[in-house]
C-alpha cells in the first residue's frame, strides 16, 4: 500500500515538474517561432494581394 502511495506521489511530482518546466522558460521555442513566422508570411502574401489598384485603373481609363 505504502509502495503504491509512493509511486503515486512520484508520478504527481513528475507531472507537475513536467508542466512547470514549460511555463518557467517563458520563451517561445525556435520551432514555435518558425511556425508563427509561417502564419505571418501567409497573412502577408494574402494582404498584399489585396492592395487596391482599382483607383489607379480608373484614372488610367479616364
Amino acid at each position, binding site marked *: 500500500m505504502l509502495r503504491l502511495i509512493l509511486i503515486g506521489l512520484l508520478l504527481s511530482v513528475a*507531472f507537475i515538474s*513536467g*508542466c512547470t518546466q514549460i511555463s518557467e522558460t517563458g520563451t517561445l521555442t525556435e520551432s514555435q517561432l518558425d511556425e*508563427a513566422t509561417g502564419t*505571418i*508570411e501567409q497573412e502577408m502574401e494574402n494582404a498584399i494581394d*489585396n492592395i487596391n489598384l482599382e483607383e489607379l485603373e480608373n484614372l488610367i481609363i479616364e
Partner: protein
Amino acid sequence: MKLAIPLIVLSIMVVVVAAQSSLTASPKVTAYVILGKGIAANPDDTMDFMIAKFGIGKVSYSTAEEVIGVLKLDEELYRLRAVVIEEGHATGSIYRNSSEAGSFDVYSVMKGDTEVWAGKMLLYEKTYNLYVIEGVRPVKASELRARVVEYCTNNEDANCRDRLQNYCENNPDDSRCRALFRAWCLRADNMDDTRCRYEFRNWCNENPRNEYCIPFALNRSRLYCEEHSDSALCEKIATTAADICEETPDNQGCAKVQQLVTRAQKLLQNAQAIKTRIMNIAVTASLRVRAATSADVGGS
C-alpha cells in the same frame, strides 16, 4: 519485483512527456503589426533595388510574447527577430537562416488613406531606403466574434447583448458589430494591429469628423512627424485636422488633437504656423479635461 523499478522510471518519463505535450499548443499570432509590400532601394546605386514584402506580428504562447516577422527581398526569405514596436515605429534585426544579416528601422506615415512604412534597412553592410505600403487585412468574422466577446465581457456597452456574439459572426458587416470591434481596438490599445487600422481607415473615410477620426492620421504619423516635423506631408495632415476643428471646435476629436500636439513636444515644432492654428482652436475646457483624462488620443 525486478521489473518494478524500470517500470516506475518508464512511467515517470511517460508522465513528464505527457505533461509537456499537453501544454504544447501552437503559438498564436495575436496582432498583425505590418503586412505590406514595397521597395528597398540603394540610394547610392539607382539600379540596386529589391521588391520587399514585409510582415510583422505579435506572437504569444502561454505567458510568453514576442514580436517577430518575415521579410522577402526579391523572394529571398529573411526572418525578423528582436522586433520592437511602438505605435507607428518598428525596429529589429534581419536574419538569413540563423545568422544576422542586418537591421531595419521604419516609421508609419499616412498618405491620404494609405499607410506607408518608410525608413532604412541595413543588409550586409549596405544601406537601403525602405518603403512599404500597408496591405489590406480586414478582420475575419470569427476574429470579430472573439473580439466582441472579449470586449463585452470586460466592458459595459449598450451594444453588448445576449447572443450578439453569434450574431456578429454571422453578420460581420452589421454596424453595431463594427462599432464593438472599433471599441475593442481603442479600449484594448490594439491600434498596432493592422486589422484595427484597416477598420479605422475605412470608417474614417466615411466619417472624417468622428472624434476618433480627426486625430487618426496625425496620431498614426506622430513619431514620423516628430522626426520630420517640417515635412510637407505632416503639415498636410495637421492642416486637415485644423480645417475641421476650426469649423467644429466643440468636437472631442479636436481636444485630442490639441492634447497630442501638447504632449508630443517635437511634433510640428518646425511647422509653427500650423501648430499655432491648432493650439488656437477654441476647444472648450470640459472637452480638454475629457481628452486629458481619456486613455486614448484618437485611436491609440
